[in-house]
């Protein structure tokens, strides 16, 4: 298939749709014969709903899930809105996978600290599930996840039950403010990370969330003594082609769609801060 037009999508069918929060839905998608393509955690796919168009989304499921691809999508733009309006059985266009993905081999043998905010859990969830499926390859796993309110936390039952019950795993949830139905931690994710005072030794921190959260999480990790090569994040840019040609996600001499979206803080520090 190497001679195929890289901009040409294939058909995929919506298996089902879960409403996660008032503005986030998880779509389960299957290709003609099972998975549309193989991929690694952190990689992305272009989803299209003609005539609205095409946009890039991170894949939320783990490659160890062989039934379908999952996308947890926040309704913020034209294509995400069109995806939110779909019903099971409808077909969309899909192409991918795009990007480098998380360095799962380099992470082997390390303790992992996942720090997610809001919809930022979507790409992390692929990696977290992957690490659980290869549990013996990784050390202790800490997961800090927060959102504005309890209603904005995605995949609540999975996070609280199945993840918290995994061996050698700690899950820390937080919301930004007090809510009547919430008896968990209250406070912003970066502050919570500082309070939990994670030790950097033998650890890799992987973070994704709103830009402002990432900014303060990076500061918090720095104060805790994490070096730039111990911190990994994944960038979001506007993209049209996914293959490093259309120019939108160009950052210095890299294209986020093909050279990213996953970067270590060390790599990011060497790039223009235009993201």
């Amino acid at each position, binding site marked *: 298939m190497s*001679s195929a037009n890289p*901009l*040409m999508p294939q058909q995929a069918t919506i298996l089902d749709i879960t409403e996660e929060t008032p503005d986030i839905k998880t779509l389960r998608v299957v290709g003609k014969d099972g998975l549309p393509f193989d991929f690694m955690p952190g990689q992305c796919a272009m989803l299209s709903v003609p*005539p609205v*168009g095409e946009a890039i989304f991170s894949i939320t499921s783990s490659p160890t899930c062989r039934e379908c691809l999952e996308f947890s999508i926040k309704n*913020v733009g034209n*294509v995400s809105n069109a995806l939110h309006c779909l019903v099971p059985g409808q077909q969309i266009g899909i192409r991918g996978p795009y990007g480098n993905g998380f360095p799962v081999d380099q992470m082997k043998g390390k303790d992992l600290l996942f720090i997610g905010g809001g919809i930022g859990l979507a790409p992390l969830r692929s990696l977290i599930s992957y690490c659980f499926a290869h549990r013996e390859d990784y050390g202790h796993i800490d997961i800090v996840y927060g959102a504005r309110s309890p209603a904005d936390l995605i995949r609540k039952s999975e996070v609280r039950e199945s993840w918290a019950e995994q061996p050698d795993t700690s899950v820390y949830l937080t919301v930004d403010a007090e809510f009547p139905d919430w008896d968990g931690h209250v406070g912003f994710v970066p502050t919570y990370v500082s309070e939990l005072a994670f030790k950097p030794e033998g650890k890799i921190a992987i973070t994704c969330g709103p830009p402002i959260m990432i900014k303060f999480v990076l500061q918090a990790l720095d104060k805790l003594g994490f070096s730039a090569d111990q911190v990994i994040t994944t960038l979001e840019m506007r993209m049209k082609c996914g293959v490093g040609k259309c*120019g939108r*996600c160009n950052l210095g001499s890299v294209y986020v769609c093909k050279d990213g979206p996953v970067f270590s803080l060390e790599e990011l520090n060497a790039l223009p801060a235009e993201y």
Partner: protein
Amino acid sequence: MKKLIARDKLPELWEALAARGPLYLPVQEGPVVSFKTWEEGAEANLEATATAVSPKDVFLPREETFLQYKSDGTKLELIPLEDIDPVTVFGIHPCDLRAVEMLDKVYLEQDPPDTLYKKRRENTTVVALSCDRPDPFCFCNEFDVDPADAPGADVMAYLRNGNVLLEARNDKGRALLEQAGDLLQDGSAESVEKKEVKTADFGLNLEGLPENLKERFEDPAWDELYKSCLGCGVCTYVCPTCYCFDVEDFGHEREGQRFRCWDSCMYGHFTEMAGGHNPRAGRRERVRQRFMHKLRYYPETFGEIACVGCGRCLRSCPVNLDIVQAIKALGGETVEQR
């Protein structure tokens, strides 16, 4: 293989070449010369120095439909549209062909290859035209382009008094000349005079410029340079080495098409994300992106500055914010030794 044709017989040659498939050549329309598909009666102008817009659209069309979709509300059919006719382009200047070779690096050599571009490139026979009349904006010498000769051409054409000499450089070129048959006379005895064509010397010093720009992302020069920019994007449209594109759908829910078209990093929406965040929200960031891409990022990946000195941005920019001004503001000016 060398052939000759009298200049007054050229319209017959256009007709013969157009029978093979679309023939692009510089056409005079009012005051503007642009590469157009030849139609009977079109006024070809081989004397023009540079066309207003570069001929990159032969390989990377302004709009290019590549997919047709049909939907019954549930099922979605996606049909690729990839039929690309064999094309002849006649009269491309050495600078512009050199620029196409820069596009090749992005669209052919960098994985995955762009199949639409690849097919156009393979299906196109290039007749390059030796250029001996640079205007005051031409500075291709600066980028080691020889205006008189285009090494990447299938056929090299030389305008002479009363006739045109056509020299096939490869099989594709020979096939083109053979197809023109009796219209062409034997030119094997003709010799090609090697001419040295001098272009403008703006006093640029490009030595080490890409490397030096690594330290100039936050240079105060950007704070001044961008101020006159109108954000019109004309520089990117006329530029032979600009290659950014957009992908959009056209149609309704039941059927329609997907196309790509030229886009410009000079426009605010180019990087604006759903939700409103924009990594290059201001003109300063966008002007910096365009020049840094030409002068630093592209060279870092492909080993050469993405400019061929065609002079189009110098001729077209309404506020003279062209690449020469940028290079000078960024330390690329020759300093006279006392």
